[in-house]
């Protein structure tokens, strides 16, 4: 048959590849800064934009969506064209995708630093950027399916299945978790509240890990590992089973992020059961990757690309064993809210995502530039420094987690907490935090060596912008199943139908979990004494969100004696019904704040304490590592949108009396004046229109509702 000549678009791959390196270095540098801030809190520089609680979301988002995101696109655009034997469907769509994605990253960075956040982890972006992500994501999908439809190969290779599942699932997750009502251009409230919001958020959060950090990378593994090893994947049968099992099971496991929380028990159990089952398909993928190298291990000794791949796939295996173990209640009681989680995600991020990306880049760049890698020796150096970096990063954090959780749970023979002062348990961790920062520094040193090596490779080669290729066109066959063709074989050549089946598979898990929590009222028992926030408290809560307090403070007391002794009565689902968004948090670098305002509680502090503490925590606790928030004492509270906020809350079902929006600002002023008067009697002169007043109002409200009902 006549061969058709065509050209692969390498320029779009090059663009995404450069963006991967650029954002990788930026995202990791920001991570180093965050790590150092936990050792030396002065490095927050007492400026809102450079404070840990704004830097940390910037780091996580930059690494996930900028570094890993661009790596996914670079790897996908290169492999998809070759697996389809076709140029991308539309160059215009490719470049809109590229520039759109970079614009989203820049606007994300700017808005995070300026304090615009929804406070939902890895989904912090405000609504206009959420919309932009949706549009750009659809453009990516359109381009991908366009390419698939004009392909010159009959069968769609398994790597592409993972790309399809990634596209469709990320779209569903992003849209559902981003349903929010705008207050103004850069402020909105999610429609879900409390328990529902938490469930939707962690259904999203868990599956962002699954479908942004795992499935696309498995697709990349199935393409680049066989290429680099020059041998086919170990078992194609295993890859088929592994694919369907993985996408089916992953979607159910989200609630394991909420064990022992106020989430209904059945949902927690579901999360645990599916997390355990998840070991099977995850390890199916890992084994398939590693076994591809059977009989080729001598090559691993020689080839830095394969070295990176081996450690990446091993890290994937370790993470996906550790994850399910952390999802059992017994282990979770021990690891949750500690640095164990941080270590766990970094095995995945630095090992699986980072190393697979660099292996892929070392393989791809010489081919795009028609040359050899500049220095194999430097690539090997990168590999070893990076591997050491991962170990130096993770081990101290595991150690920190064990130390802290044991200290939190230790009782004296008389039955009192041995370390009742939370700060004692933090001070112990500082050397481990310093070691972790050193690990991070090692890792980024490796990355910088890698960037140098790749830049040198680029300058020594000549870029092949449009790579010539030829293939016979596909003959037209029936869109229906042909004789003797099984359903799945048919599906393997029908990309759109394949996407629809994948969508159905992932929707089953999501719907079974989320719909009952919406519909069944008994899942969230109502508590009569729980009332909506006052306008001032609502403004204070928005400041709490803006400053990212949730990055270090949880608001979820689990039903353990060690927690109720320390913080007070455990948290009930009904307490959060007006929390748009929920603020349960996922890490306790500082103490839990769920009962902060309870006067008879162990944690209660007067208004004057909060005032001084926000100004400079080290004035009150010399060893505190909390950043200063002194601008709250100076900034005037912007109450222009208070009325609008109340109206939006009413739309969301928060029972403020009709017409309350008009009255809200008056009530706000009265409550603010009361707090300012109280502070005055404690010797602190402050105007009632400062932000600190609103924040104090919110903190003093926390956890008090159910106490008043008694």
């Amino acid at each position, binding site marked *: 048959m006549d061969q058709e000549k065509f050209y692969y678009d390498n320029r779009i791959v090059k663009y995404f590849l450069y963006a991967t390196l650029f954002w990788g270095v930026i995202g990791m540098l920001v991570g180093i800064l965050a790590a150092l801030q936990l050792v030396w809190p002065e490095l927050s520089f007492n400026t809102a934009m450079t404070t840990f609680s704004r830097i940390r979301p910037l780091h996580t988002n930059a690494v996930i969506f900028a570094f890993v995101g661009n790596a996914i696109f670079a790897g996908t655009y290169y*492999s998809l064209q*070759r*697996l389809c*034997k076709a140029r991308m469907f539309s160059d215009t769509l490719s470049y809109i995708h590229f520039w759109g994605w970079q614009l989203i990253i820049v606007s994300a960075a700017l808005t995070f630093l300026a304090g615009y956040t929804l406070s939902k982890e890895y989904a912090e972006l405000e609504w206009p950027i959420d919309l932009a992500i949706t549009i750009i994501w659809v453009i990516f999908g359109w381009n991908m399916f366009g390419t698939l439809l004009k392909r010159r*190969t009959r*069968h769609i*290779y*398994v*790597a592409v299945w993972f790309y399809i599942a990634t596209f469709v699932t990320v779209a569903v997750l992003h849209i559902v978790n981003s349903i929010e009502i705008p207050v103004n251009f850069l402020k909105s409230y999610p429609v879900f509240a409390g328990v529902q919001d938490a469930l939707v958020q962690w259904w999203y959060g868990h599956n962002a890990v699954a479908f942004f950090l795992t499935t696309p990378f498995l697709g990349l593994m*199935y*393409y680049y590992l*066989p*290429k680099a090893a*020059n*041998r*086919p*994947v170990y078992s*194609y*049968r295993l890859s*088929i*089973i592994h694919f*369907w*099992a993985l996408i*089916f*099971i992953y979607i*159910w496991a989200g609630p394991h992020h909420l064990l022992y929380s106020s989430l*209904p*028990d*059945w949902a*927690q*159990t*579901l999360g645990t*059961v*599916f997390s355990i*089952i998840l070991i099977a398909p995850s390890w199916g993928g890992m084994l398939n990757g590693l076994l591809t190298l059977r009989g080729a291990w001598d090559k691993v000794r020689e080839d830095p690309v394969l070295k990176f791949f081996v450690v990446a796939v091993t890290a994937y295996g370790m993470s996906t064993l550790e994850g399910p173990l952390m999802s059992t*209640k017994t282990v979770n009681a021990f690891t949750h809210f500690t640095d164990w989680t941080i270590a766990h995600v970094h095995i995945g991020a630095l090992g699986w995502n980072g190393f697979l990306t660099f292996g892929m880049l070392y393989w791809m760049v010489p*081919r795009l530039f028609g040359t050899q890698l500049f220095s194999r020796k430097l690539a090997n150096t990168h590999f070893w420094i990076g591997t050491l970096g991962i170990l130096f990063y993770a081990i101290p954090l595991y150690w920190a987690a064990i130390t802290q959780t044991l200290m939190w749970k230790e009782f004296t023979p008389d039955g009192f907490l041995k370390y009742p002062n939370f700060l004692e348990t933090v001070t112990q961790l500082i050397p481990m935090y310093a070691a972790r920062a050193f690990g991070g520094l090692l890792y980024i040193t490796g990355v910088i060596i890698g960037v140098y090596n790749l830049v040198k490779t680029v300058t020594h080669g000549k870029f092949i912008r449009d*790579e010539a*290729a*030829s*293939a016979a066109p596909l003959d037209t066959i029936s869109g229906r199943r042909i004789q003797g063709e*099984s359903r*799945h*074989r048919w599906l393997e050549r029908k990309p759109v139908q394949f996407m629809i089946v994948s969508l159905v*598979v992932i929707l*089953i*898990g999501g719907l*079974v979990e989320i719909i*009952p929590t919406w519909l069944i009222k008994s899942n969230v028992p109502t508590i009569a004494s729980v009332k909506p926030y006052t306008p001032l408290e609502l403004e204070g809560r928005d400041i709490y969100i803006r400053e990212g307090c949730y990055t270090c403070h949880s608001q979820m007391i689990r039903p353990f004696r060690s927690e109720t002794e320390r913080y007070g009565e455990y948290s009930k689902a009904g307490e959060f019904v007006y929390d748009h968004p929920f603020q349960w948090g996922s890490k306790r670098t500082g103490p839990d704040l769920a009962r902060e305002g309870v006067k008879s509680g162990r944690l209660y502090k007067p208004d004057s304490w909060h005032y001084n503490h926000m100004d400079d925590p080290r004035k009150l606790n010399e060893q505190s590592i909390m950043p200063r928030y002194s601008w709250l004492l100076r900034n005037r509270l912007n109450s222009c949108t208070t009325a609008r906020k109340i109206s939006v809350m009413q739309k969301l079902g928060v029972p403020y009396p009709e017409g309350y929006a008009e009255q809200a600002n008056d009530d706000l002023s009265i409550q603010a004046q009361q707090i300012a008067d109280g502070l005055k009697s404690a010797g602190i002169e402050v105007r009632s229109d400062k932000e600190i007043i609103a924040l104090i109002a919110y903190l003093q409200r926390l956890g008090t509702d159910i106490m008043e009902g008694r």
Partner: protein
Amino acid sequence: MDIIQHHLETIPGISIYPVISFVLFFIVFVVMIIHTFSIDKKTIHEMKNIPLEEMEENNQ
């Protein structure tokens, strides 16, 4: 069997949901296994070699 039953029953909150979920998953899993093992060797060989083919053709 008693010991398995005991452990299943004592999982807190175990109800019909996990059971349905597990059954669903199990069916999908079994169907997929049957399907994949029914594919003939030649087809499997062709499919798994797709990424390597273009390498030969384009002499990369």
